[in-house]
């Protein structure tokens, strides 16, 4: 049996409807910030219980643009965690900020207890990452931000549908950036991202900023990039957005099954605590495992497409050398990056495939 990590093949099982939509778009020629984008933005905002959503070119840009619009200036420090995809840090750097890292905690999100020690007079913002689809401790983070006058931009690239204390991701910070990359829970067929905000002022600014600062065809009010969600991608998003609840529920159910089965392997694997009040949407199902690399090879040989997200914490990447961090600075992230493994958990997996993956892990440790 093969248990694939990517679900795209199964998304294509019935593609005629998508192709019909694309045909209509191609014939209509409404390729740039067209009706499909406006519709997708409205529906995405509703999904996040937010008044505004602004489609942009990528999840990375969905972080870069709000940071720039929040007035980040060169040299300003932005706090995040090294347990993330490098795009979080790339976005901070592209916005002109200096990334400052704080260690992660058991659930692979920033440890709120360690944030205040990292704040300096140059700190301007915090970018908590809802990594793997788990939700960072937003109430505590917002308290810290309020006490220190910091802007919060949530990295929700992996966390569409996530909630904490009943509130959607994107409800906490001044903005949240989401990714629509082809492997995300809600995906499009290329690069795409979207920013959610509760600030009408920021939404207006983002709409200008993503589109060259153009107030209309002829009037430029600020120098901005070109970072627009393509209409073509919005067309795909509009088809798939109806499925988000199904996608999320199915991923949560698969994760629950893994959690229960892996509890029996407590001597060998460690499943993060599932915090009360958090709706974890399991973009990635990640555990810590003994003899991780051997387990990965075993699963791969069995046809279970496990992955590692990621083997190198961001502060130890070559790109981060100029920041002056070294091994030992963030022990939790460093230790986790040596033991984490991601099991397939996407919405198109069958129960049988999930049981097969469970059995493959069990057989590795128990023979």
């Amino acid at each position, binding site marked *: 049996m093969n248990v694939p990590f990517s679900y795209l093949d199964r998304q294509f099982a019935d593609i005629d409807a998508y*192709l019909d939509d694309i045909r209509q778009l*191609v014939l209509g020629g409404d390729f740039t910030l067209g009706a499909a984008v406006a519709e997708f933005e409205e529906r995405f905002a509703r999904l996040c219980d937010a008044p505004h959503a602004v489609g942009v070119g*990528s999840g990375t840009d969905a972080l870069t643009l709000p940071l720039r619009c929040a007035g980040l200036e060169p040299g300003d420090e932005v706090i995040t965690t090294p347990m993330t995809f*490098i795009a979080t840090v*790339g976005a901070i750097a592209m916005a002109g900020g200096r990334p400052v890292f704080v260690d992660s905690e058991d659930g692979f999100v920033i440890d709120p207890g360690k944030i205040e020690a990292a704040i300096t007079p140059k700190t301007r913002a915090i970018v908590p990452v809802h990594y793997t689809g788990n939700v960072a401790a937003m109430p505590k983070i917002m308290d810290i931000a309020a006490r220190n006058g910091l802007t919060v931009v949530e990295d929700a690239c992996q966390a569409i549908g996530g909630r904490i204390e009943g509130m959607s991701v994107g409800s906490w910070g001044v903005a949240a950036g989401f990714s629509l990359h082809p492997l995300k829970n809600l995906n499009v*067929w290329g690069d795409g991202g979207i920013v959610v905000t509760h600030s009408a002022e920021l939404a207006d600014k983002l709409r200008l900023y993503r589109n060259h600062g153009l107030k209309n065809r002829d009037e430029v009010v600020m120098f901005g*990039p070109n970072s627009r969600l*393509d209409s073509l991608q919005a067309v795909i998003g509009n088809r798939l957005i109806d499925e988000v609840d199904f996608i999320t529920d199915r991923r949560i159910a698969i994760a629950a099954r893994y959690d229960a089965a892996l509890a029996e392997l407590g001597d060998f694997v460690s499943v993060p605590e599932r915090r009360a009040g958090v709706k974890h949407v399991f973009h990635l199902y990640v555990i810590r495992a003994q003899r991780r690399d051997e387990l990965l090879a075993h699963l791969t040989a069995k046809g279970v497409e496990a992955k590692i997200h990621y083997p190198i914490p961001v502060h130890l990447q070559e790109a981060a050398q100029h920041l002056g961090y070294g091994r030992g600075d963030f022990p939790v992230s460093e230790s986790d990056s040596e033991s984490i493994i991601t099991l397939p958990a996407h919405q198109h997996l069958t129960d049988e495939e999930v049981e097969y993956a469970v059995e493959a892990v069990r057989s590795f440790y128990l023979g």
Partner: protein
Amino acid sequence: MRTRDITVDIPYVDIVGQHAAIKDELLAAVAGVIDRGQFVLGEEVGEFERRFAELCGVDYAVGVNSGTDALILALQVLGIGPGDEVITAPNSFVATVSAVRLVGATPVFADVGDDYNIDPGRVAGAISGRTRAILPVHLTGRACAMDPLREIATAHGLPLIEDCAQAVLASYRGQGVGSFGAMGCFSLHPLKTLNACGDGGVLTTDDAELYEKLLYLRNLGLKTREDCIAWGHNSRLDTVQAAMVLVKLRYLEEWTAQRRANAAAYQAALADVAEVSYPLDDSVRESAYHTFVVEVEDRDGLKVYLQDCGIGTAIHYPTPIHLTTAGNELGYGSGAFPVAERQAKRILSLPVFAGLVPEQLERVCRSIRSYYH
């Protein structure tokens, strides 16, 4: 399918007509991408890059998310940033200048000539100790005066970055634009002559080292899935867009020939209209005619009149960048670039798209004539 009555409306551009004619090929290309399932940097991107490099006569091309990003990446890969100055023209689309500002550098303008392109005679005077690059814009699809620009750049040890956003297939002394400087930056925006069905851009270069760096800078600094060697953007040409642009490449030479024929027809038909002038073609430069821009008396009156005749026109661009709200911060005032400022009040872009038929073009010329006489 709607029918178009050429006696009624002549649009400025006809995106719908362009795509209707090739819709089956485009859809087949999209279906091919779905079959392979590689939406990010899939094989169509590589194929497009190879074909585009060949078209421009360079060794390498790199597909990115937009023409603006092509400029940003070109500046970044050369290490241009805060404190550095980049010399360019004030009459481009704003993105040329935005790119310079977004990397933190300062745009310094040199006025343009009668051909709407940067005046090489004024570039030398704009060079300072902080100048790090010259960014000529091949506006309207006509190449800048590349020989003198290269001489200046070489004399001062400055790289040339060509803004080719409007100039696919434009040439200078038989050499394609995008092959003169360190890099050429092209746009695949839906209104361009080679257009994606969404945003897209592409860089060209002969420099293997720059090419390698551009490959990782557009892809978050990733050298492999796991090794990040520099902070970078996510700026990749979508595979789906590359697949559709590959379809259009089959037609590009034909479309460009039609634009050139349209431009030649306008030039012949409007030669004796004293109120209308336009840059003349010469033996050195072959324009791609992304736009056919004329300078006219009473521009705003003519534009309204043509609109009333059902003829769409456009202005590229009504406000020079230094006089826009965004441009205030650059500290130039009115009068700083008299040629560009005068042209901005007089220029008008006439329909020149590939599907424009002779009867339509003749009607545009007749209407212009009747406005003045």
